[in-house]
């Protein structure tokens, strides 16, 4: 259920970004969410919609980009995709790996309609 607080954080970042860009109407927000981030995309989308409803951000779209888990082997130096939740280097079998992708929880970009009229 922490998707609600994540959606709040996202909106805070979005509002700051819109205003530092000189305002305008938000069309969409692109967020990147790793498979290991423990976030349910549908819940996040639901919370985002609920929180924007009736605000200046209403109807903005949340674009969720998922990223899979990639690990770097500290022993043989190879990067590989972690499959089936087995955190082991497929090349040399080492468990001495560092997850380099999969924990992402980031606001990547926003799309703003600048010529938004004041009417």
């Amino acid at each position, binding site marked *: *259920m*922490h998707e609600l*607080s*994540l959606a709040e*954080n*996202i909106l805070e*970042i*979005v509002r700051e*970004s*819109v205003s530092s*860009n000189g305002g*305008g109407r938000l*069309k969409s927000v692109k*967020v990147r969410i790793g498979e*290991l*981030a*423990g*976030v349910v995309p549908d819940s996040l989308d639901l919370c985002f919609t609920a929180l924007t409803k009736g605000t200046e951000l209403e109807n903005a779209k949340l674009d969720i980009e998922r990223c899979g888990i990639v690990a770097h082997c500290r022993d043989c130096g190879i990067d590989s995709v972690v499959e089936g*939740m*087995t*955190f*082991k280097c497929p090349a040399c079998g080492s*468990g*001495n790996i560092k*997850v380099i992708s999969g*924990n992402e*929880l*980031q*606001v*990547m*970009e*926003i*799309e*703003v*309609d*600048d*010529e938004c009229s004041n009417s």
Partner: protein
Amino acid sequence: MSVVTVERKVLEKNDELAQLNRELFKKHGTFVINLVSSPGSGKTSLLEKTLEHLNGRVKVAVIEGDVQTDLDAQRVAKFDVPVVQIVTNGGCHLDARLVQDALGKMELGGINLLVIENVGNLVCPAGYDLGEAMKVVIASTTEGDDKPLKYPAMFRNASVLVINKIDLVPYLSCNLAELRANALRINPNLAVFETSCTTGSGVREWSEWLITEAGTTSR
């Protein structure tokens, strides 16, 4: 229409506050663990057993996180250690700000070990850094042996796994070896302990390891 690059972490505020907490812990030489598990796995029980075993040898303080009530703080206060209860009022995890607030109600000077008992939940607390030195995850045998595979982020982010309620193994279909193997598949670097808070089995090994760790890291 314009596209504006943002590239900011959703949890950036939390990470900043966690860093402040971490600096405070470092300043006081306090070793901090973030104790996480499903509700009822035995976080408070293990803490009670650990305090009983340590018997005042190291100075311990506790922050209790619960959705409601200060029942756990009451349990811990019996051991005559400083304890602050955080009630999240529905919140499913502790965050760095709640911990910062709790730290304001506590004297860290002279404390060697601070245990933060998180809200019972294997999902949400995984992503929230509190400033701790390590996360300790408890999996109890009654939850079955597949939990590491179902909640990989938590087991991946933890440094220690305590398998609790091993006294119940004879009555369950939970396979201890399988539970351990599943956890190590997610995180081969996990230190693993097996405990029973009912019989006290394994409590000594875990507690001694913990204070050794606390001693070496805070120096």
